[in-house]
């Protein structure tokens, strides 16, 4: 750039200043309003949207699907699409380091690459076109981030569509822009604008096509317990599922009964002061995670047991134990396991029976446990699974095995052999739980709250 051009630029700027505004107060005023608007927006977001909860980090839980902050999603998706390309896709650093590095390098050196003094938009079609398509590509990649690249039938079509939308068309557009800029020179603006609009429409079209043909898979929502009461309740459920069989519902068992392989084994009463006062939280969760191999306690941590618990889930068990049994802790008011039943109300599986089963039955009656193959993990399994599927739950019949055993009856076959002992094997269910089971079975096992709402329990 020669001195004459520089002088021209400086003179033009002087003229602009002449007909301009003052920094104070004109510009500052707008800046202040902008700052205020941003502050209000942030307060509103913090108050009404809040922060998405995620459980505590757990290095052993390798099944967790990582997901970066939203402003890295485009790069994440770009890498995923690039990885689909045969041969080239295996050289990860090209997409992970080289391409972003070159892009950042070009952006940084921009003033030294684009040295022409021209600033008006129509004279800068090439840089504007490239940046426009690139930003649109970022936006589309971000939107596509969660969409799978493989269809459920194994076809690569979604990945191919996405690659066309966000990588192939932009690449072609950059090439056409550059060719136009260097052949048409001053007259390139119109051609580049038309190409840019066309590419933009095509990119958006392919993105929409990929989204419509292969929609987002339904994601399971994981609720993270954040309040103490929720954590205690979740902890109690995990305790019931994994610990209760040996340690009993009040943690007072010292000699294990009725557990295959551990019959007669000794254990400490884990609700006693001896244990609770001498073992701190960290050691307690380590014991649960690692187990006690010498005395037969299996490890429950996910790192040692594929069906085990994450660190956070083990912590909830410890929180439950402290608040339920440790006299140095006060138990907060806990919500009832299921909403109490009104006089004529009929319970449903979703609202009442599922939490009861989870608390009292599931620790034994689930796949992997020997319980006459009767599994209670789903509605269907409760109704018909196991060796005595026909007899377990019979709509409207008091003599189904489930209702008999929870009310203290042993089931015998014709030869006097025991088919099933009383349930649960140790202790008895509370009267309101038995009542809920009776109403549910006798009224035909309604599944949802709506199913149950149409029924009425005949009160004497």
């Amino acid at each position, binding site marked *: 750039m020669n001195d004459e051009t520089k002088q021209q630029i400086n003179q033009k700027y002087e003229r602009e200043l002449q007909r301009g505004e003052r920094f104070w107060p004109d*510009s500052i005023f707008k800046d202040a309003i902008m700052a205020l608007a*941003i502050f209000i927006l942030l307060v509103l977001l913090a108050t009404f949207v809040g922060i998405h909860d995620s459980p505590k980090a*757990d*290095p052993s839980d390798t099944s967790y699907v990582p*997901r970066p902050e939203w402003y890295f999603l485009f790069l994440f998706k770009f890498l995923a699409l690039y990885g689909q390309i045969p041969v080239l896709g295996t050289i990860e650093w090209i997409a992970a380091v080289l391409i972003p590095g070159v892009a950042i390098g070009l952006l*940084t050196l921009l003033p030294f690459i684009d040295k022409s003094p021209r600033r*008006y938009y129509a004279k800068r079609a090439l840089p504007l076109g490239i940046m426009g398509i690139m930003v649109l590509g970022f936006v589309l990649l971000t939107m596509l981030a969660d969409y799978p690249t493989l269809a459920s039938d194994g076809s690569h079509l979604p990945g191919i569509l996405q690659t066309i939308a966000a990588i192939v068309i932009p690449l072609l557009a950059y090439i056409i822009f550059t060719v136009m800029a260097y052949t048409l020179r001053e007259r390139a603006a119109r051609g580049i604008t038309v190409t840019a609009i066309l590419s933009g429409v095509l990119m958006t079209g392919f993105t929409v096509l990929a989204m419509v043909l292969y929609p987002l898979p339904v994601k399971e929502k994981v609720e993270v317990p954040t309040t103490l009461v929720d954590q205690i309740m979740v902890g109690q459920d995990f305790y019931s599922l994994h610990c209760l069989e040996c340690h009993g519902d009040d943690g007072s068992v010292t000699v294990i009964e009725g557990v295959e392989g551990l019959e007669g084994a000794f254990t400490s009463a884990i609700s006693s002061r001896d244990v609770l006062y001498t073992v701190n939280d960290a050691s307690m969760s380590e014991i649960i995670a690692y187990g006690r191999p010498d005395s037969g306690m299996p490890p429950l941590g996910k790192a040692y047991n594929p069906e085990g618990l994450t660190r956070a889930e083990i912590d909830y068990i410890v929180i439950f134990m402290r608040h339920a049994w440790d006299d140095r802790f006060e138990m907060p008011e806990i919500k009832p396991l299921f909403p109490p039943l009104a006089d004529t109300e009929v319970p449903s599986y979703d609202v009442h029976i599922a939490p009861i089963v989870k608390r009292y039955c599931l620790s034994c009656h689930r796949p992997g446990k020997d319980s006459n193959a009767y599994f209670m993990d789903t509605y269907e399994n409760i109704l018909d699974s196991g060796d005595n599927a026909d007899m377990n739950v019979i709509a409207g019949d008091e003599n189904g095995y489930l209702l008999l055993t929870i009310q203290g009856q042993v089931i015998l076959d014709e030869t006097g052999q025991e088919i099933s002992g009383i349930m649960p094997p140790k202790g008895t269910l509370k009267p309101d739980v038995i009542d809920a089971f009776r109403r549910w079975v006798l009224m035909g096992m309604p599944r949802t709250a709506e199913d149950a709402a149409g029924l009425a329990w005949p009160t004497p």
Partner: protein
Amino acid sequence: MRSTLWKNIFAWLDERLGLNDMYKNVLDRPEPLGNWWNTLGSASLFLFLLQGATGIFLTVYYTPSPDHAYDSIQYIMNEVAFGWLIRGIHHWGASLMVLVVFIHMLRTFVTASYKYPRELTWLVGIGLLLLTVAMGFTGYLLPWHQMAYWATIVGTQIAGSVPFLGDFILQSLRGGPDLSALTLQRFFAAHIWILPALLAALIGVHLYLIIKHGESHFPDKED
């Protein structure tokens, strides 16, 4: 009587600090006609200051160790008075800052404000953009939750895929071959000391250059 007292105090301070010169050089400047697109730079600065202020509050309760980081943030969210608000602003402010700084860069690109005499301002600005993203990356790990942990595993792995230097970069980022307490500690140090110090220094240079050259005008057909 009182007004002369204030005048005397001001005169005394002005003699020593040069308040009037400052006013003339910094505030009372002519500028080309601007519009709302010109507020993005100051909005970025405002967000930086807001992140600094809320971040300082958060360090009062936050503990950078794998055993306590998660719980200390639960404590901030549930127990500390207005802790949820401070963290909420910091959390959303981070996202907004990345967005605003990026759009600010786009605006500068579109109006070609990076050209003579503002090339250095652009260079420093790119540094600020990259530092802002680095702040986002280091800050994301600090809550030590599942998302943060596994995103950082992947993020550092990507940085580690550089040919030849990859292993060195990976180990320097993580403080060892694995993501550990050391990683959290050095991300924390980077997030609250190293990167903000660099940001503040570069912001100083950026502001000096803006005052020195004035804000650019929107180009018209003559440009």
